[in-house]
């Protein structure tokens, strides 16, 4: 059964300096219980996409296309229906910087808040009890509920955000850069926690990051984004090891793999910066940085094409 179906999604921010197309015609399906990794550098549109799934973008943003989550047309929901669906159908694990948690409220109160809003528990005491359970499930002692965010370490805050996301038993979990700001050791712990939770609760997972190597641990499939579009899609290990798109290959090479000392010694970086949404190069947006670029690349933006069994890439060389 399809948990999430995105079709031709385009998101354009309206700013004082003109419209900025952050996401351009993205589409993908995700089966129930599946796990999709969304990889790309800053500015490629992945966080925008994540926020769009729960319609969290600023009111003036133009969103076209279709998002169907657990059978509901997200973009067509009424405000009441949308609020009801948020957190109960799909929940986001935000990046755990101090800013994702309200600094003047205890973490326990923030974890319990969605339970009380959606009335998934019968009373305040029940909420408190469940908060304790959730904290223990993510590896924190239950009494941490009375701590304030600034009293916790980065890793602990990230666990709190995971517990918070699970508060209303969502079917879909969207993890937006959950390990980015953490030390390597803590990263590994959080990743393994997410993997355990996914298995135990049969969650459908979308994992967003700029670190391609991390996705191979937690996700079955990977979609690579560049300049607002998906430029490659396929099973995670294959995409990582044998990327069809030149950008994917560059991305894999740029990060040392956890546990592989050799790759730490010779990371290969990619020159230049990703284009900003307002300044997309003509044709294939990657061609200015692509080592295999040809004159044809400047003319037309290649669509996603079959590049192998269950794999697609948006490059003319496929």
């Amino acid at each position, binding site marked *: 059964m399809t948990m999430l179906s995105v079709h031709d999604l385009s998101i354009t921010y309206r700013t004082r300096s003109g419209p900025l197309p952050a996401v351009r015609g993205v589409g993908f399906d995700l089966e129930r219980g599946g796990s999709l990794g969304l990889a790309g550098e800053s500015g490629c549109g992945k966080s925008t996409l994540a926020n769009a799934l729960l319609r969290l973008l600023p009111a003036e943003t133009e969103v076209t296309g279709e998002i169907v989550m657990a059978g509901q047309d997200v973009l067509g929901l009424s405000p009441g229906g949308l609020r009801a669906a948020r957190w109960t159908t799909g929940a986001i694990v935000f990046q755990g910087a101090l800013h994702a948690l309200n*600094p003047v409220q205890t973490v326990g109160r923030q974890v319990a808040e969605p339970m009380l809003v959606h009335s998934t528990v019968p009373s305040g005491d029940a909420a408190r009890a469940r908060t304790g359970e959730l904290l223990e499930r993510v590896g924190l002692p239950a009494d941490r509920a009375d701590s304030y965010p600034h009293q916790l370490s980065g890793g602990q805050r990230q666990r709190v955000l995971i517990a918070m996301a699970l508060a209303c038993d969502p079917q879909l979990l969207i993890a937006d850069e959950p390990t980015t700001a953490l030390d390597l050791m803590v990263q590994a712990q959080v990743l393994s926690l997410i993997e355990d939770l996914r298995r135990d609760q049969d969650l459908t997972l979308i994992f967003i990051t700029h670190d391609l190597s991390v996705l191979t641990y937690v996700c079955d499939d990977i979609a690579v984004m560049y300049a607002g579009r998906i430029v490659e899609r396929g099973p995670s290990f294959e995409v990582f090891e044998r990327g069809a798109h030149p950008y994917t290959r560059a991305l894999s090479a740029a990060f040392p793999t956890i546990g592989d000392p050799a790759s730490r010694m010779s990371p290969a970086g990619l020159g230049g910066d990703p284009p900003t949404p307002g300044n997309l190069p003509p044709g294939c947006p990657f061609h200015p940085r692509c080592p295999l670029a040809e004159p044809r690349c400047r003319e037309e933006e290649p669509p996603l094409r079959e590049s192998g069994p269950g794999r697609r890439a948006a490059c003319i060389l496929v």
Partner: protein
Amino acid sequence: MGRKVLGSILTLAFVLVFNFFLFRVVQTDPIGSLFRGRNVPAEKIADLREKFGLDEPIGTQFVFYVRETAQLNLGISYQSRQPVWDEIARRIPATVVLVGVSAILSAVIGTIGGIVAAWRRNSLRDHAITSSTMVFYSMPDFWLGMILLLGFAVVLGWFPVGGMISAGSNATGIAWLLDYLHHLFLPALTLTLAYLGEYALVARSSLLDVMGEDYLTVARAKGLRDVIVRRKHAVPNALLPVVTLTAINFGFVLSGAIAVETVFSWPGLGKATADAIRGPDLPMLQGMFLLFSAAVIVFNLLADIAYAWLDPRVEKE
């Protein structure tokens, strides 16, 4: 917290030292000034000089001064020949009411205005609120009082032209209260309008900062309604800087009362200060300065403590 209290006491001590030495510089002959224009025999003056210890070295005089001040013996007013403390004590209630009412109103109205302005940033409402508060804040507070007095008391006759109670009135109970409020209205309105600008500005900018924070998006993602997000997450965090501001602003409102009380002949400490300037009634000025400073120091300390109690990020000792 002990350190804060100690700091305040230290500051108060500095004020005492400053007060003492500054006036000693000017008051070359305090006893002589006291009896200026009066026919007093020379032995009496010398006698008093000795009694007040004015022949002693300056260090002893300072100790004497501190001891006397602690006993609320602040000297004798040149103008009224009454003890300074009596003159001050008599007028404290009037100023406390005026400044208290104005400070509370300006804080509440200003903060609400700032929050409303920030929530719909750059709207017509926002521009109207920010511009009007900026205009009020840019004019001399007593000039605003003069205009209000002219418009509402002289021209329209809706309010009395000055004072605290109607002259020759012996009303009691409710009638007295209504008369009092009738007289209080214009001066309180003046001080409130003059000082709500700062609150509006700080509340607005503080809320704008909070509105950019991620935890608001998180709250919305959890399914909370916009109104609840604002009430439970945005506004409480935005109010913290406003608490600090009340301390700073209190000093200004208190000082603003000096000129405004003069305009409305409101018989409080402010008007007494203005009258003392005309003398110059130096003992009165000395006493006023001490009192104003002490009030602001104490209020700052209270606001500091309140802030530490409200913000969980501040280290609790």
